[in-house]
Every structure is written in C-alpha cells, then in structure tokens.
C-alpha cells in the first residue's frame, strides 16, 4: 500500500485492490448513515417497535388506573368495602399501586432492551 508520508491526494492504488477492501454488502450502519431507503426502513422499524411497546404499557397502565375512579363512581359499595381491616380505596391507592407500577417498569425495560439488542445485532451483522 502507500507509504505513510505520501500525501493523500496523490495516492495511487489499484482500483481493484481498493474495491476489494470494501465490504461487498454495505453494513446496516452505513445504510443508516447514508440515509438510504433501506436505512430509513431500519430506523422506522426500530422506532415503530419501541413505540408499540411504549403505547402498550401506557394503555395497560391507563386502563388499570383509569378504571379505579370509575369503579368507585359506578359501584359505590367499593368505596367502603373493608379488606384486611382497611377500606379498599386505601389498599389500592395507598399500597397496591406501587408494586404494580414497579413490575410494569421492569417488564418494559426488559422488552425495550431486547428490542435494542436485536437491532444492534441486525444492523451490525449485515
């Protein structure tokens, strides 16, 4: 190859040799860097997969949390129902909510990291 002190601009190499150095298939990261159609599709699929996960978690949480006031509103006896010596609303809102939220967060992080690991392997290995 060229000597280290030769100026870059005038370096002359065999076109076939330099062509051989390039990977035959451009990697996924290059597709993304050059914003090719394929690279856009890679990014779109990553963002959409993550967004679907996010929306699923939000829908689940809002459905569960959002139905609690509705339950109290529509079924008045639940407002005073006693569970283990405590009124049901206090058990749900004061205690149960927190472990549920924590578990939801753990599940989300596991899925989000798996999506990212798959993406990393996919675009890196092409």
């Amino acid at each position, binding site marked *: 190859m060229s000597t280290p002190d030769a100026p870059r601009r005038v370096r002359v190499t065999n076109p076939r040799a330099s062509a051989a150095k390039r990977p035959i298939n451009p990697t996924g*990261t290059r597709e*993304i*860097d050059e*914003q090719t159609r394929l690279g*856009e599709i890679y*990014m779109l699929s*990553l*963002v959409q997969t*993550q*967004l679907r*996960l*996010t929306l699923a*978690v*939000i829908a689940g*949480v809002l459905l569960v*949390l*959002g139905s609690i*006031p*509705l339950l*109290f*509103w529509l079924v008045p006896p639940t*407002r*005073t129902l*006693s569970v283990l*010596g*405590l*009124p049901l*609303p*206090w058990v749900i*809102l*004061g*205690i149960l*909510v*927190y*472990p549920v*939220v*924590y578990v*939801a*967060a*753990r599940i*989300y*992080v596991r899925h*989000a*990291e798996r999506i*990212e*690991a798959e*993406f*990393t392997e996919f*675009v*890196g290995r092409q």
Partner: protein
Amino acid sequence: MSPALSLSAIGLVVAATIGIGLFGLRISRTTSDFYVASRAITPRWNASAISGEYLSAASFLGVAGLVLVNGADMLWFSVGYTVGYLMLLVLVAAPLRRSGAYTLPDFAETRFESAAVRRICAGLVVGIGTLYLLPQLHGAGLAVQTVTGAPPQVGAMIVAVIVVINVAAGGMRSITFVQAFQYWLKLTALATPIFVILLAWHQPTGVLDSLHGAAAEWAEPLSRAGGRAHPLYATYSLLMALCFGTMGLPHVLVRFYTNPDGRAARRTTVVVLALLGLFYLFPPMYAVLGRTFAPDLVGAGGDTVVLELPGRVFPGTAGDLLGALVAAGAFAAFLSTSSGLTVAIAGVIDQDLLRSRLHRWTGGDYVAVNSFRIAALLAMVVPYLAFTVTGALSLADTVGLAFALAASTFCPLLVLGIWWRRMSTTGAAAGLVVGGIAASAAALVNVTGGPHGGWPRALVGQPAAWTMPLAFLTVIVVSKLTPDKIPAGTARSMVRLHTPEAVDVDRGPGPATAHRALPTARRS
C-alpha cells in the same frame, strides 16, 4: 414540640448539606464538572439522587396534609407523582438521554433547529421552576413557624440562602451526593415515627378507627369531603397532570443527563420507581393517624400534620425527639428540591440570558463559572420575591399547577418530538405557546380566586384534562399545515434519539451544550 431540639436537628441537616457540598467543591474543578458531574455517577447513586430531589415539600408535608383535610381522593397525588416516572420511563427516558441535551432548551434547539423555540422553552423552564420553588419556600416558612413560632419569611430565607450558597459553590457534583443523602434522610425521618407509633400502640386496631364508622366519610373516594363539585373530573384531570407533567419538570431532565447512556437512564428510572413507592407508603398513614390524634388540624389546612403528629401522640421527650427528626426530614425536602430546581433554572439563565451579555459587557474578561453563580442567585431571588407577595396556597395545589403547566407544554414537545418525525418547527412553537397560555391563564385565575362553583371552577382548578389535549392538537394540526417547516435534520435526530449506543452510526452534531467552547474554570 421542643424548639431547641428541632432547631438543632434542622441545623444538623443544614450543616451536613453544606459539608457534603464543600466536599463536592474540592473535586469539582472544571465547568463541565459543575454542570454534569462528569457523567460518572452510578445508576444506584443517581436513582437515590433523583428521588431525593423529586420528593419535595409537597410530598413530605403536602400529601399527608391534603389527605388529612380532603380525604381519600388526595391519595391520587402520590400515585400520580409515581406513575409520572413510569410515563417518563416509557416515553422519553432513553431517547432524552441519547439526545445529549442537558436542558429542555438544548433539546428543543437541536431537535427543531430553531433559536425561537429555544427561547420559548427557556422562558417556560424559568416559569415552571419558579412556580415549583414557591411552595418549597412556603413549606420551609411553615416548618420553621411550626417549630419556633418565627414568621414564615425566616424559614424561607434560610432555605434560599443555603441553596444559593450550595449551588453556587459546588454545582451539580456536590448536589448529587447531597441529594442521595437527602433521600435516605427523608425516608428515615418519615418512617421512624410511624414505626414507633405502631409499635407503642397497645391495640393496633384503634389506630385505624378514623377509617371506619359514621365519621369516616372523609375516607371514601369521590365524597364531598374534597369540597369539589365534580370529583370524578377532578380526579382524572389531576392524574393526567401528574402522569404527564413529571417529564417536563426542569430539574428532572438535568438529572437524567448524569446517566452514562440511554440504557442506564432506563435502569435508573426503575430504581427511582421502587424508591418513590417505598416513600409514598408513609404520608397517608400520617393522615389516618392525624384524624385521630390531631383533628383540629383539619380546619387549619393540614400542611403541618407531619410535623405535629409525633408530639401529639407522645407528649414528652420521645415526641420531641421524633418531632426533631421529622423537622430535619422536612428541611431536607425543601433543600433538595430547591437545589435541584435552582441548578436547572440557573443553567438556563446562564446559557440563554447571562453568558452572552456578560461576555459583551466585560469584553470576555470573566470566568464562566462566575456566570453560573450569578445565575444561581437570580434563579432564587425571583421566587423569593414572589413568595413574599403571594398568599398562602396549599402546598400540593401550587405544585399541581406547575405539573399542569409542564404537562401542557414540555410533554407534547418531548413526546411528539421524540416519536413523530413529521412534527414541524412551527408546530412545536405553536404547541408551546397555546399550551403555555392556557395552563398559565388557568393557574392565574386560580391564584386570584376565580369562579366559585360548578364546571368553571372544576375546569380552572384542574386544567390539565383540557389544556394538555389542546396543546397536542395544536402541535399536530399546525405541523400538518406547515410540512415545509419540518426540520431538515429530522432523520438524523431520530437516529440519535433511538439507536442504542452500541451501534456505531453517525448521530449528527448533537446539541451545543454547556461544553461549547468553555474555558477550564479553575485550574488549581
């Protein structure tokens, strides 16, 4: 309650805060240290620090007070404060960290390539921060008043001065250690009296009397105890403000920048959720016990129930000791949240308002760190002046308005900016302006009295349920109308926000944050 004991406990907290701050000062050398603690803080430290900073006067005193006075519906406050972090986790945590933005204006400028959007954001950060600092000062005044009988200005002044000194002296590195320490202090201070009371009580069932029987209407959700005409609407609206406002609070984003990468940002948030859940088990217990042991506080606003309960249950030395512990925890709450807010507001004032002007006035003859210090002073002076002129609003109510404003401005900006590639710069600006005006108008009407009953009162008292959708709708409609204003670098921004750090891609130039051409502050 023994003033001497409580004052020495408060003095200890203040001394420890300043002490850890000075320790931080010795290791923070450069401007970059000042801002981001060199991004070398582990998730566990960081999670303690985030929780320590987040648990404010509203959580430590306000939630218990609200539940005591207004009943079970107020339990939604602590639920919302926690679920807000879950929403932050799934919607923005990792992308926000990967954006490389240190402040919300940084994020806005890089994503939307617009100095105008940046300026609107800077104004909103100062506005939300000031609205959030106000109840901290109010709480500090209340605590010192309860303990010693001194006027509220004294406690507020103490907190203001200590926070400014600490922030100006140590910056964020020391703040991280201080905040982590404050979380555990606050948890200990809140939990210990409850455990002592429950252990010392001979008949545990008697403690729960206030929850049952004829006089227990307050313990029912959606009852009239809250004094609200439309409790179902108010509950949903409050839940929305708290769930979606958290991500838009200025001190929260700054804290996320201290994570090394997006993955760490997510894991930190999970630990935060565990720490918050643990903490919020305790304020409702104060309310339940307060109904039995301090029923007179129900008429007095209730914000002091956490401070007064130990003395009411155990007259004598035991009560004094526990009271001193709680007072110390309350002061930790004021100091930590105020410090975090002051760092965030000062960062914005420094970068967006002060530094260029200082540079012009002094002809470049200034040290960047000094600009940050002046900004820290300014960040506290405005809320302190506002504190001296505004009347006493309930702690958690004022905080609720700050959340509503954040949910109506920064939430649409962040969520749509991260997930929607067809968002235009004009749409971003329009959403911020419309959401900001609607929510601040509601807050203003609320503070000055406002409508007295029916739907107008409910809509103004809890505005998030209509201001937040309004802001989202504005962004979407205006973006659709101005497709030519979609930032040219949107595709590259999406790559930066969403690709894991392990993938070697071109992430674009990134935000020009605090590191931009900064001189090394002090070489000693």
